[in-house]
């Protein structure tokens, strides 16, 4: 019941478990050879089979992000260890111990996927769930971004978070910081077999000035908005600015950037961003409303009034909010005239 039904990692990392894992790996490789010989059974590892056709153009055959730090996991805490590894690689000063109260569930001896994403935001990072594609995983690594992956190691172990930091295409190995192992090599098929059972779950956590190599515009914007929502306006501001460098046409990102400027009290910058956005999209009620509010906050209600009138002329789902702003501006103007 409850969260128990969700994926939790118990990260058994004892010697025996690893020995068992190695044994199973051996059996796997044997069965692999047999099975592939038998039927060319690509459907067992569909993505590995796809990759066998060759790497996408421009990707190196061999990558290893050697500078990624290593935090051996303590007890069942592979979640905090994996997250600390990526956050520290992104420049945060952090240890797994500090992350335990942020991602670990003591009674369940594990960490939820959602919380892995959420906790990274609390350290000013943009956390992004990768598309469930092996190729995307390799792409992120070759772009210098360590990737947290979730494995289902059953029947020899439980759920386990590890950080992919490199690969060797020729040998067909993935290189990971995992549990108590600083440099684990995992064959592509075995990796896929354990990974696919988490629904190919993988995430990156990047500092706000960077954008994931495989980022999709809409989903990256959501990831930045999530950072803003988590309350880190300064990091979100940087992230929106980076977003606009890459996708300059996005009105939504401009609104986000202006909102973070506004939240940080940088009204002049918020105004500039909104004015540019209003030039690009003159009929956005949100842009006009927020511009009027920003002007009003700078005690320039005379300038704000025509802007909010324009917003009011645009019918739409935000009519109520616009009307509220308009009334407030009219009220302030009336009060000024009295004085």
């Amino acid at each position, binding site marked *: 019941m409850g969260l128990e039904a969700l994926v939790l990692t118990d990260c058994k990392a004892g010697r025996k478990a690893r020995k068992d894992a190695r044994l199973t790996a051996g059996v796997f490789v044997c069965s692999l050879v047999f099975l592939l010989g038998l039927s060319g059974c690509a459907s*067992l590892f569909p993505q590995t089979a796809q990759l066998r056709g060759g790497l996408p153009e421009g990707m190196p055959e061999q990558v290893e992000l050697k500078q990624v730090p290593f935090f051996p996991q303590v007890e069942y805490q592979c979640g905090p260890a994996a997250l600390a590894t990526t956050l520290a690689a992104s420049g945060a000063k952090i240890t797994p111990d500090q992350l335990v109260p942020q*991602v670990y569930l003591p009674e369940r001896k594990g960490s939820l996927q959602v919380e892995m994403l959420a906790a990274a935001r609390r350290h000013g990072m943009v956390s992004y769930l990768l598309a469930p594609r092996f190729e995307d995983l390799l792409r992120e690594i070759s772009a210098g971004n360590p990737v947290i992956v979730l494995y289902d190691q*059953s029947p020899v172990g439980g759920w386990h978070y590890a950080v992919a930091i490199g690969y060797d295409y020729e040998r067909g190995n993935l290189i990971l910081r995992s549990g108590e192992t600083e440099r684990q090599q995992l064959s592509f098929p075995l990796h896929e077999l354990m990974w696919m059972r988490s629904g190919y779950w993988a995430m990156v956590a990047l500092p706000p000035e960077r954008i994931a190599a495989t980022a999709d515009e809409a989903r990256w914007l959501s990831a930045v908005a999530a950072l803003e929502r*988590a309350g880190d306006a300064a990091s979100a501001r940087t992230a929106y600015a980076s977003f606009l460098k890459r996708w300059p046409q996005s*009105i*939504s990102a401009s609104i986000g950037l202006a909102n973070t400027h506004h939240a940080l009290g940088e009204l002049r910058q918020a105004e500039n961003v909104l004015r540019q956005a209003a030039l690009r999209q003159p009929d956005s009620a949100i842009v006009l409303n927020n511009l009027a509010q920003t002007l009003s906050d700078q005690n320039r209600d005379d300038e704000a009034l025509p802007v909010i009138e324009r917003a009011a002329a645009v019918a739409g789902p935000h009519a109520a909010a616009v009307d509220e702003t308009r009334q407030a501006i009219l009220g302030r103007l009336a009060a000024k005239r009295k004085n």
Partner: protein
Amino acid sequence: MKSTFASVFVRLLIVLMAWTPYQFAQAGMIGTDQVVPSSQSADRGAVLSFLSRGDVAGQLQSFGLDASTAKDRVAAMTDEEVRYLAGRISSAPAGGSDAGAILLIIIIVAVVWWAWKR
């Protein structure tokens, strides 16, 4: 009775605490969540999210967190993530990964059997 009352009361407090940060939107500014698709919080969504946040925070607490830690952790989630967790609480069957393990065992058995038969 007393403990039922206490648990309802505690839950209500959690809900209120979890909700608090979002009540202080900047006056007059329309939030980014109104334009970014996945974090849309229309009125109905906001109410659902309001309930779900308390629900999820309560669940986290039952797994050994104290109230303020649970609240902080829920606060870092998006509405979508909260709804995902809350939705799972009521509907997810236990042990979602058994199919894979069974498949694995079948493969191993099949291979051993095949090798032995030859």
